[in-house]
Every structure is written in structure tokens, then in C-alpha cells.
């Protein structure tokens, strides 16, 4: 029996979309590595690297860690968003939903207010943020646990509750903070890659890579889960184990991403939607496509953030929301009839 043409067509759409972001990523990485206060033509980059020409130090010491960090953070956020949307069976889920972003924000704000004067914030701040994120998620998980099972709706509600309590605590710290601390907390919350260097990358990349590798393996179970937890079980999925993996890995990955770059909103929510609109919802493609697309979008956003008002920098979170938001609205208006009929 021949495969249906409609099935072929859909498969073609998935493959084209993956191919597109797969090609776009290296192009965008090279562009972002070349563009900046010191201009290095992207096609020249390999030569500059090999022959250690002028600009070598800029590339290796400044641009590469920053661009790579942006790519990793974007990929992690978008991939985590796609996984959590699938796990909660809710297209409105974003990586912050399980409390990790707000917890990390609280950890960071605490660090800034209590220890900001110590002078080793480059290490302590990410660590405090990371721990804050993990603590928040483990609290959320405890609340939602009953016996061997975790109730997904409770997980979502507990995530919202813990997030708003963290938000209130951050507000309290803002009230207590002096002007300099206030500025640090606010900029941290809006996100950015200004602090990128190899040390920060080395600290956070392993968590993001580990989480990414684990999350990509959840594609098949997530496909079964779209029908519901009971149906996923009947299709042979160990649902509780899968939820545990999804939450643990997104907490690790997003915790590290937020620790490295602060709160960059929007990427985790929107990139999976873009992929669904252009290609389709099959998680076997969606997860890879979201990771690649998130990397592309975030590297571009960082490029804009450090070039439009150079030598100053705009927070990346502002760019992602400012440019991505209206674009996403336009897409929704254009495709709503086809995709969500």
C-alpha cells in the first residue's frame, strides 16, 4: 500500500522546516560573531581564526562565548517550552511555568541585595539564581505529589503560586535595595548576554547540554501524551517517569539558562508555536526544530540588543518581546484559520 500523499506532504513540511532552521543557525552564528563594534566580515572568520589575524582576540575572547551562550540559552528555553507545553497539554505553557524562572529571579535578587558588594558576583550570582530555580521547582513538585503520582494540574497551579510568591519577594527586595542594586536586579530580570565569557559558558553549558539531550528523547512519549495521560499509558508510556524526567530536566536546563542570561521571556513560549504553525505539532520534529529556532532567534535578538544603541546595550528580553510579540500576533492572524480551525 502506498503512503498517502497527504502524509508525504506533511512529512515534507516538517523536513523543510528543520532544514531551514538547521541552515539558518550556522549562518546566524557567523553573522553575530562578525558584527559588532569591531567589524569582521563573516566569510573571513575561518581565515581569521586559522591564521590568527587581527580580530582573533575579539572573536575568541568576546564574540564566541557570547554567541554560543546566546545560542545555547535560546535552544534550551525553546526546547523546554515545547516539552512543557506538551506535558501540560497546554499551548500557553512556558518554561517559567513550573516556578524555575521566578525562583531563579529571587535567588539572583537575594544575591544582589545581600552579597552584591562582595565582588565575585560573576560566579555567585548565577549560582544563586540556579539554586533558587531548583529550590522553587522542588517545592512545586512536592506540592503536586500524592503517593507515587504527580497531579499535572496541581503542578501547574503550584508553579503559578510559587512564581507569584517569588515575584512578591523580589518586589520586597526591590523596595529594600539601594539604587545600584535596584538597577542590577531590574537589568538581570530583563535578561542579557553582557556577562558572557568562557567561564560562565563552561559553568552553565553542561547543564543545558545534558538537559537538552535528555529532553530530545521525550519526543515519542510526548506525542502519546497529547491524547491524555491515560491514553499515553495505554500506548505503553510510563507517564509518571516521563513527567519526572521532563520537570527535572527542564528545571536543570532552564535554571542554568536563566542563571547565565537572566529572565529572557517569550522565546520558550513562542518558538514552539512558530514551528507548529509552519510545520506541525509532531514532537519528533517539534523538539529539534524548537531548539534550533530558539537558538537562531536568541542569537539574532542579542545581535540587535548590542548593535542598535551601541556602545550601550538594550536588554535582550526587551528585544525578544518587542520584535517577537507583534510578529507572533501577525502570524496568529494569518494562520489561525488553517492551524487552529
Amino acid at each position, binding site marked *: *500500500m502506498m503512503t498517502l500523499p497527504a502524509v508525504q506532504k506533511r512529512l515534507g513540511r516538517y523536513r523543510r522546516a528543520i532544514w531551514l532552521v538547521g541552515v539558518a543557525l550556522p549562518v546566524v552564528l557567523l553573522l553575530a560573531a562578525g558584527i559588532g563594534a569591531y567589524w569582521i566580515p563573516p566569510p573571513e572568520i575561518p581565515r581569521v581564526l586559522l591564521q590568527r589575524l587581527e580580530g582573533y582576540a575579539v572573536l575568541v575572547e568576546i564574540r564566541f562565548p557570547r554567541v554560543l551562550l546566546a545560542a545555547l540559552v535560546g535552544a534550551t528555553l525553546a526546547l523546554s517550552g515545547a516539552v512543557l507545553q506538551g506535558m501540560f497539554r497546554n*499551548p500557553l505553557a512556558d518554561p517559567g511555568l513550573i516556578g524555575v524562572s521566578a525562583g531563579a529571579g529571587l535567588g539572583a535578587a537575594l544575591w544582589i541585595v545581600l552579597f552584591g558588594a562582595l565582588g565575585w558576583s560573576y560566579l555567585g550570582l548565577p549560582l544563586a539564581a540556579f539554586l533558587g530555580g531548583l529550590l522553587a521547582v522542588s517545592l512545586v513538585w512536592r506540592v503536586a505529589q500524592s503517593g507515587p503520582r504527580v497531579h499535572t494540574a496541581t503542578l501547574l497551579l503550584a508553579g503559578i503560586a510559587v512564581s507569584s510568591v517569588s515575584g512578591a519577594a523580589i518586589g520586597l527586595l526591590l523596595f529594600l535595595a539601594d539604587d545600584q542594586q535596584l538597577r542590577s536586579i531590574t537589568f538581570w530580570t530583563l535578561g542579557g548576554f553582557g556577562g558572557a565569557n568562557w567561564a560562565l559558558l563552561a559553568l552553565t553549558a553542561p547543564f543545558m547540554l545534558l538537559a537538552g539531550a535528555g529532553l530530545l528523547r521525550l519526543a515519542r512519549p510526548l506525542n502519546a501524551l*497529547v491524547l*491524555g495521560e491515560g491514553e499515553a499509558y495505554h*500506548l505503553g*508510556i510510563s507517564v509518571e517517569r516521563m513527567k519526572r524526567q521532563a520537570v527535572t530536566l527542564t528545571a536543570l536546563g532552564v535554571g542554568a539558562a536563566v542563571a547565565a542570561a537572566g529572565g529572557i521571556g517569550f522565546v520558550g513560549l513562542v518558538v514552539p508555536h512558530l514551528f507548529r504553525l509552519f510545520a506541525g505539532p*509532531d514532537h519528533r520534529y517539534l523538539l529539534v526544530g524548537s531548539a534550533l529556532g530558539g537558538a537562531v532567534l536568541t542569537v539574532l535578538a542579542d545581535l540587535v540588543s548590542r548593535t542598535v544603541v551601541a556602545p550601550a546595550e538594550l536588554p535582550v528580553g526587551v528585544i525578544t518581546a518587542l520584535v517577537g510579540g507583534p510578529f507572533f500576533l501577525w502570524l496568529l492572524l494569518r494562520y489561525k484559520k488553517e*492551524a487552529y480551525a
Partner: protein
Amino acid sequence: MPEAPPHPAPQALQKEGGAALEAQDLGCRRGERWLVREVSLRLEGGEFWALLGPNGAGKTTLLRLLSGEIPPNTGEVRLGGKPLERYRPAELARVRALLPQQRELSFPFSAYEVAFLGRMPHLEARAETPQDHAAVQKALEQTDALGLAERLYPSLSGGEKARVDLARVLAQEPAILLLDEPTNHLDPKHQLELLEHCRHLAHSGCLVIAALHDLNLASLFADRLLLMKDGRVMASGTAQELLSPELLERVYGVPFQLYPHPSGRPLALPRAAPS
């Protein structure tokens, strides 16, 4: 279309000489309320069982217990002599499928993609092959849903969704098929086709258990009926043995009258005064 080959009798059942599902003193409670209690059953391949009873009798809970989805509070369910909890979910899924009552989907999957999910238990350790797609297409054809393949599942009508979902569980090629009110949302033609298909599957070696509300369709199509009330099994047997006005009134709480059907199986209607 050529005649479908007989359904492959699965190994798990062949080994155990046809003993499919056994339940012993099965009980399940939520808080103080027993949804199912003291149920002991032995259901074998080759038979089509209809599960009957009023709302809240425990039909859905019994199906979920028999599928292994929820662990019982008392007793156990055995498949081929081995307790369900000693199977891995993926092992079970290659042997049994359950068609649920409610269906909702928040992402724009196509009907074909939904039906293809039925192949998942078989794709645990191998890549998909053209045979997998052939199985899905055959299942879609059997439920008259091939024409819906391209459509987005969330945009389908209730009956269309029901047919796509049925194709999904058929594509799973289970030896034990559990159906929770499968005729809901279906028009009479598709109801008949579904029940005929269930009977065909059962008579080629499968165990089919369907929770039904229509006593008459159950009487005409099922080999055996299981009557439930308040979580207990009230009676089980063939339609001829079971369908008596007294028992039906005891189970459903309204008086019934029986009518003969040319097949010899009784039809039962609740007594009601015509307007």
C-alpha cells in the same frame, strides 16, 4: 478490497491456552466510596463481552482496572497468569488497547497522525516501516475514516473523532480490546459497523470488552453480557440467559419489557407510556 486476513493470535495468549484476563476480588475506591468492589472475572480470547449497567455502575473504572491504568485497592488482575503490575507499560500496550470515552487534543495534529499513534507500542525498539503505515491505513479504512486522514483532528465532529480514535486502537493490533462506550456520537450505520467489527475481531481470537448503554445492540452483537450496579457484578452470561424484566428492573430501577427478535435474542425496552 480483499478479505482481511484473520487477526493474528498474539503469543501471550496462545501460550496460556486462551486465558486472557482474570480478575480476583477486584476493588477500587476513591475516599470512602467503592467504585468497583468484589469483582472476580475470567475473560477469554474469542469472545465479545458487553459491559452494561446504569451511570456510575463502575463500568469505566472496571475497564481502567482491567487495562492496568489504575492500580486496584484490593485484588489483582492477571494477564496470561501474570499480574498486570509485573508488565512494563510498553509490553502491555502491545497486547491490549483501550478506547476512552472522552477525547480532547490541544494541538493541531492531523487525523492520520492521531491514528498513527496506535503504532507507538510496536515502535519502541525499531524505526517505522511502510507496514506500519499500511496498518494505519487499513484501520482507517475499516472505520470509514480514510477520507478524514488529512483533516486536523480538533476540527472533526464528535463522530468523526470517534472513528479516527477507533482506527487508532485498531492500528495498535491488540489481542485485548477494551472500549468505553464506543458507540457514543456514532450514527446508526457506523454503530453497526463498529459492533460488527468488534464481533469479527473477537471471533478471530481477540478478547473484546465494550461498555455499552444500548441493551439491544449489546444483545444482538455481544457473545456475553456483564451487568454491573454500584461497582458490583450483578450477573453475567448470554443475552438469552440474562435479559429478564426482573433482573433489568433490579439493575436499572425501571420496569422493562422484552420483545422477540428474529435472531432469537431478546430485545428489551424500558416500559414507558406512549404520549
